[in-house]
């Protein structure tokens, strides 16, 4: 049986080309796997630039002027949506917001029709969040625009993983007294990360594992049996444990996942209290972690459940920093997908025609 064309996941290419970032830009960001180690490193380098832009009195550059970014959020999420909208606006793109809680992105109405209607208004990029896995990939098949996955069911949340990596890099650079711009991704080599909690139902966990492993970190999953996926075959993790206390003394980063009580995670556990006792990150547990180790949480936090209030407020915790760097990382993602190297997909600029005349090769404009 020949490979069926319809299994193509929408043209996601790899950025792991190594030599030439200008030629291996992915078309979409549906999964962290679309970037590869090289792609992740490039996004981090761009984020540095956009952090600097964010510090300016007018934190705005015209890089995506004339482009339209549509945010299709079929799931409630103020923070992520605002972060993406801010990122798009700071790049001077126009933003179409589309929240579909209960509206025409609901059951029964063709998702394809809804998306193509919005696309007809002239959209260059869709940022899609949906409670069902795979919707961004489906959208990518239905429209010409670029698609960014802002969280799809239990599947992935690539920009969350990217901003978490950016945060770790920023903190580590500070620790060493080295400017973050001169810190590559070598700091992730051998970094010991524990991801704790409801891995089975966590899109953040899946993206984090892919990103951290691609960068060379050693990832251990810590969860009760009922909150681990049915199979870990093919997961680039170094270990799995059911005992948080055994793992904590040997980690550099403890990444705490949210217990998704509103999604029924509770039925996989005897009680929330039992979970908090066995897997909750308490002050006592943090004290058992090595000196200089970090605590992270994708937010929002269930204080007192997976993370104790006092731990959330502790210096080692990076939660607010993660939020701050989010806009710069999302600017980097939008920039990588929409700017540069995509001039060929729009009407050629007069300068492009000028430069291209005569010579067969592309000339560099000085």
């Amino acid at each position, binding site marked *: *049986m*020949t490979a*069926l*064309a*319809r*299994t*193509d*996941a*929408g043209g996601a290419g790899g950025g792991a080309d190594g030599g030439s970032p200008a030629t291996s830009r992915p078309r979409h960001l549906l999964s962290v796997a679309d970037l590869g180690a090289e792609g992740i490193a490039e996004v981090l380098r761009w984020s540095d630039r956009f952090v600097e832009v964010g510090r300016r009195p007018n934190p705005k550059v015209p890089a995506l002027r004339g482009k339209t970014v549509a945010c299709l959020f079929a799931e409630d999420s103020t923070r992520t949506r605002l972060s993406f909208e801010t990122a798009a606006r700071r790049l001077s793109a126009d933003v179409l917001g589309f929240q579909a809680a209960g509206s025409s992105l609901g*059951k*029964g*109405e*063709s*998702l*394809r*029709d809804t998306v193509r209607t919005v696309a007809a208004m002239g959209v260059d990029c869709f940022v899609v969040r*949906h*409670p*069902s*896995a*795979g*919707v961004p*990939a*489906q959208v990518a*098949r239905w429209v010409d625009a670029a698609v960014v996955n802002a969280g*799809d*069911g*239990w*599947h*992935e949340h690539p920009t969350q993983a990217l901003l978490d990596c950016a945060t770790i890099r920023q903190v580590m650079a500070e620790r060493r007294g080295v400017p973050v711009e001169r810190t590559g991704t070598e700091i992730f080599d051998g970094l010991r990360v524990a991801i704790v909690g409801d891995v*089975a*139902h966590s*899109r953040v966990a*899946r993206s984090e594992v892919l990103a951290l492993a691609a960068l060379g970190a050693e990832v251990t999953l810590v969860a009760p049996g009922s909150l681990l*996926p*049915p*199979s*870990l*075959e*093919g*997961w680039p993790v170094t270990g799995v444990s059911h005992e948080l206390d055994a793992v904590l003394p040997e980690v550099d980063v403890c990444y705490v996942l949210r217990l998704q009580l509103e999604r029924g995670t509770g039925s996989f556990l005897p009680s929330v209290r039992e979970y908090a006792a066995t897997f909750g990150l308490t002050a006592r547990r943090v004290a058992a972690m090595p000196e200089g180790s970090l605590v992270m949480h994708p937010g929002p936090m269930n204080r007192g459940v997976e993370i104790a209030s006092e731990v959330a407020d502790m210096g080692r915790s990076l939660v607010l920093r993660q939020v701050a760097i989010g806009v710069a990382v999302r600017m980097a993602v939008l920039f990588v997908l929409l700017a540069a190297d995509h001039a060929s997909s729009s009407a050629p600029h007069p300068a492009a025609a000028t430069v291209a005349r005569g010579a067969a090769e592309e000339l560099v404009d000085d």
Partner: protein
Amino acid sequence: MTDATRDAPPGARRSPAVVVRGGVVIDATGERRADVLLDGGRVVAVGEGVDVPGGATVLDAGGCVVAPGLVDLHVHLRQPGAEEAETVETGARAAVLGGYTAVVAMPNTDPPVDCAAVAREVLQLGEQAACRVAVAGAITVGRAGERLAPMAELAALGVRLFTDDGAGVQDAGVMRRALSYARSLGVTLAQHCEDRSLAAGGAMHEGPVSSRLGVPGVPAAAEEVMVARDIALCRLTGAPVHFLHLSTAGSVALVAGARAEGLPVTAEVAPHHLALTHERLEGFDPHFKVNPPLRSAEDVAALRAACASGTIDAVATDHAPHPPEAKELPLDLAAPGMLGLQTALPVTLAALGEAGMGLRQVLALLSWQPARIAGLATEQGGDQGGPVVEGAPGNLCVFDPAARVVLDPARLASRSRNTPWVGEMLTGAVRHTVVNGEPVVVDGEALR
């Protein structure tokens, strides 16, 4: 009026004689180079160089296999209730284009076939259809799994198979009572094995791929617990059980054990479970979503081996038409199912050919064995399954096993288009189909 006409089977239309020339006849008795002459709805001569009466229609079968018409134990014709997806007429047309001369329509229509009135409606629609349309009745009223449907009333209309397909009967006590009742009627219950409490919410096979993709999965156990249960109930009641669309290695192992014990258990498999695996869902394309889901390569291998060893008795398409909107939804919300009638022959030939099975063995699974399970076989008083001998009912499938055709959606007779094989190169094409002595497909074109 000739003798042939007087002996014509009921419902045979008066049409000119037909000669199928130049093919190789393959049926349960063997394989031989032979021409076939049909008249008055029956086969009147089989042999090298038969006399062709004047005015006879000649169907060129050079390079082709001439087999008894295929019989599909499992199709969803969607009528009544979902006619935008398919009707008895369009489904039957798809069937004959696929080489089928008889199909068994599943009862999960709206309203369901759980009473004589609805069964009669579908049977009447079937009388005008291009092929024979038999009807399966529901086991329980409304397919709700609680009260038994009026099986005797339905059996009186000729219904031989009963199933709540689309769902399995969840309560063992209800199933036990249904089996006992069915046994006394001499009809067969067929089970869609799916334990709802294990399968709930699943959109694909539960395994490494679903875990990586973060898609809720249906474990193999959801099917196997019900297979095991119904084997035990078969042992308890002595009633025959037919297992619909088996999909796991564990299920076929259970069936093999039951057969070794001598229990009256039969099983079918769908072509897509012989050909496709769960990796197809990596693009989150709902066209690969089906119930039971596409499983692992190990399951596919086990199903193929079970076909070769005889543990599986029939290939049945589970032809499931859906309008585009039903597939243009997120994966977990999309309707499960794919078309099957026009792709079953090439897909099955390729998949089982890879397992080393010969044409006659494959045709057994597609024609005379399902005919028997459906109660339509000639030796049961029906008109399906051959063998192709003098006096046999004129239901034939003439196909070229080597023809390579790219599936063009415009050539699908179904009202729906939900098949993953559109645009794919398929090997094996139906050239002619003859129903009750009348050609209904000639040179790949449907006449009705």
